[in-house]
């Protein structure tokens, strides 16, 4: 889906859903996730559908992932760090889950 055009200066290791990945040092996390093959990063609140990075600049909130235990971080606003642990696949609670009909 995406490829690297410019070779990075160095690499760091991040864990995505428990698996280690070598990614470019200082890279935007959403970019690193796309390059690692993670097109869908979370599920939508109401219909539970796959969502991936969309706006790339912190506006749309579709690239939310859990970073080092902190939930709902925008992957497009974060740079990778060595040892960072990322969890994808979160589904935000829908209103129907919390309020009885």
């Amino acid at each position, binding site marked *: *889906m995406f490829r690297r055009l410019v070779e990075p200066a160095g690499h760091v290791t991040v864990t995505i859903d428990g698996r280690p990945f070598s990614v470019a040092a200082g890279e935007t996390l959403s970019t690193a996730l*796309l390059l690692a093959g993670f097109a869908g990063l979370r599920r939508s609140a109401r219909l539970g559908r796959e969502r991936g990075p969309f*706006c*790339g600049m912190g506006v749309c*909130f579709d690239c939310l992932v859990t970073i080092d235990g902190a939930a709902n971080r925008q992957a497009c606003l974060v740079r990778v760090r060595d040892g960072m642990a990322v969890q994808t696949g979160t589904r935000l609670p829908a209103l129907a889950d919390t309020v009885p009909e």
Partner: protein
Amino acid sequence: MTRLDLVIVGAGPAGLRAAVEAATGGLSVMLVDEGREPGGQIYRGSESGAFAGTAKLGSDYAAGAVLAAAFRASGVEALFGATVIQIEREADGSFSVSVATGHDKAVVVRARAVIAATGAQERPFPIDGWTLPGVMTAGAAQTMLKADGVVPDGPVVLAGTGPLLYLLAAQYGALGVAIDTLLDTAGPGNWRRALPHVAGFLTSRYAFKGLGLLGKALAATRIIRGVEAVSAIGDTRLSAVTYRKGATERTIPAHVLLLHHGVVPQINLTWSAGAQHRWNAARLAFEPVRDASGQTDVPGLFIAGDSGGIGGAQAAEAEGALAAFGVLRMLRGTAGDDDRIERQWRRRLAVSLRGRAFLDALYAPRQSHLCPPDEVIVCRCEEVTAGDIRKAVRRGAMGPNQVKAFTRAGMGPCQSRMCGLTTVAIIAEETGLSPGDIGHMRLRAPVKPVTVAQIASLSEADERRPTESPSATRPCK
């Protein structure tokens, strides 16, 4: 308690130039930005991005590195990786600016004036399937290029209207990145409506640059004009794009679809701070009301750059300077011994804005794309369709706030950034009223979702200097 003279929100061309001029004028200044280094979106990656120090993305982009260096040399304290969530005007006329500095940390910075330079965002282009992974905005793809040197692979389709679509195609072309198809969705009457503004365009810098762009994009890409409908097809991710032109409908394979519908001001912060905003019918966007220095009707709150109305990077930089002079005049009674510099910036602003009216008309989106068919999701967060919104209006929802209450459109984490304008456009279509009369959904602070820990940690900057937080950086001297 320490009180700064000025807080600047945004490190794009407007914010950076404002910081340089305000520091030169002797003000104490702090700049806050969500990014990790100076540049904003237009100059993203100017310092450490994949093309920093090269001319491969064009001379306009290279100007960002010069401005970033001037900012670093100014000595202005910068808080990167931080989000301004609220601007409050206190009883004494000063401002309390709440800044989230980490997922469990926030601080309050006090200042006598604020310049909001929050820039633009892409106008939503709601089509069937636009929530599928693999569908992104052209701006998102461009930031991936600038910041990380990463480009789309496999069949790539660009769709929509606006100069950025062609700029991206030209940048990809120059780097040898193949675009399969560019679907141009600009309406057929746009040329006729743009023609009265052609004189301004021909004397603008866009005339030369624009023709060059078109040439480059045309040479490398299959361009299909007059496209009337686009939809994204796929199960859990994008696999194809369907488009309609006249009576023919075609489906083409695609791994990446990049949408663009022009750019509009980011108004959540300035609206929530109480500044008056007005509908601009030519630009199809809400814009804050400002004086010649960029000051709003909230005394001491200035707005510079694209967040005040789309003018591009050079106009933004000029507005940043003018806002800084405005703040200097407000706090010091004078903008300096020599008003020639201010006059020069004002001239540069006028020159930079030449040709914008032509571009606005030429690249205007189609009405049918501003108000999509019933089945299309408008609010991505809460998955509310155009049909849901139409139904709410027919049931008596009087405006965007009631539509929000009826349907939950605009109630999700993006706080209507992705659905606000479409919701207003649909209400306008249904009622026959103008968007100016309808207004936008009320935008409130905190303008981005906050954690309980952030609220709990809110403390004055005095008690916890932002420089102690890990994301704070001191300028390199």
